[in-house]
């Protein structure tokens, strides 16, 4: 029965990590796509757009790391 719990923990954690990656990757790629498009339309605003992109990407990545730590807790049970 202990092995069942540990095995289920592994399944949950690895599936969770994959889903976190899908979510974070989708979000950040949308930001990067609009940043590229905005810079192409108006190259003078490149510096401002780049700063905004970095900040928004860091916010999304912060939440992705929340979920990643929860997945890590699923692996580390005995």
């Amino acid at each position, binding site marked *: 029965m202990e092995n069942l719990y540990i095995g289920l923990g592994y399944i949950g954690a690895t599936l969770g990590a994959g889903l976190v990656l899908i979510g974070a990757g989708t979000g950040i790629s949308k930001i990067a796509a609009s940043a590229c498009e905005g810079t192409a339309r108006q190259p003078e605003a490149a510096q401002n757009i780049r700063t905004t992109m*970095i900040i928004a990407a860091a916010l999304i990545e*912060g939440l992705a790391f929340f979920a990643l730590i929860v997945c890590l807790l699923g692996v580390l049970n*005995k």
Partner: protein
Amino acid sequence: MELTEIFKHHILDHTYTAINIAGFTLPITKHLIMMWIAGLLLIFAIPILIKNSYFRSAIEAVVIFVRDEIVVSNMGEKHAKYTGYFCSLFFFILVCNLIGIVPFGATATGNISVTGALALSTFLFINFAGIKEHGLVGHVKSIAPQGIPWWLYPILFPIELLSYVTKTFALCIRLFANMIAGHFVLLSLIGMIFIFAKVSIVADLVVTVPFQIVMSVFIYLLEIFVAFLQAYIFTVLTAIFTGAVLNPH
């Protein structure tokens, strides 16, 4: 060796000794010593290194960047006097992150207590700046947005208060997880060499070792980039939150 044992040895803290002050037992750990080294480096090494004019221009460029792009552009021209706090925050987090990459060093910001303390100091700073600007009553009133019907206040006030705490907590977790993730990936990559050694040593030395070493070098470079980026992001987000408190419209 167990995964949790290796994890405990390489990533978590070790206590070297403990000092007893007035009935409290305060442990002296590796992360604490690394924080002291970072602090002493910033306090004593920088004034000596500034005598060289190239180094002084480099430090000046960074401080002017912090003042113009981070503090003034988010909080307005008249709050430029807060540059001291933001510079301290930026340089402290940067040095703490970079010390973890040196061999035999540990990342002090990879301990959730340290990032929790930094986030708490940010929370206190935001409230201090708000109270100094608007006064105590004005700061409490500016938490909820203006111009909404009176019966929405009891619902909106706890939510806005909770958003303060959540934003600060997210700052803490973001810095901690970014720093720990780099070391954890490095641990797994190099640990794979030892795991494959049990299967067959020859295939291990020929195939796994070069590949893992190349990947580890790549992850080290990524860690250096993430160290700079996370120090910048922490400072910028603190400035944005303070700016939102100082100019509530």
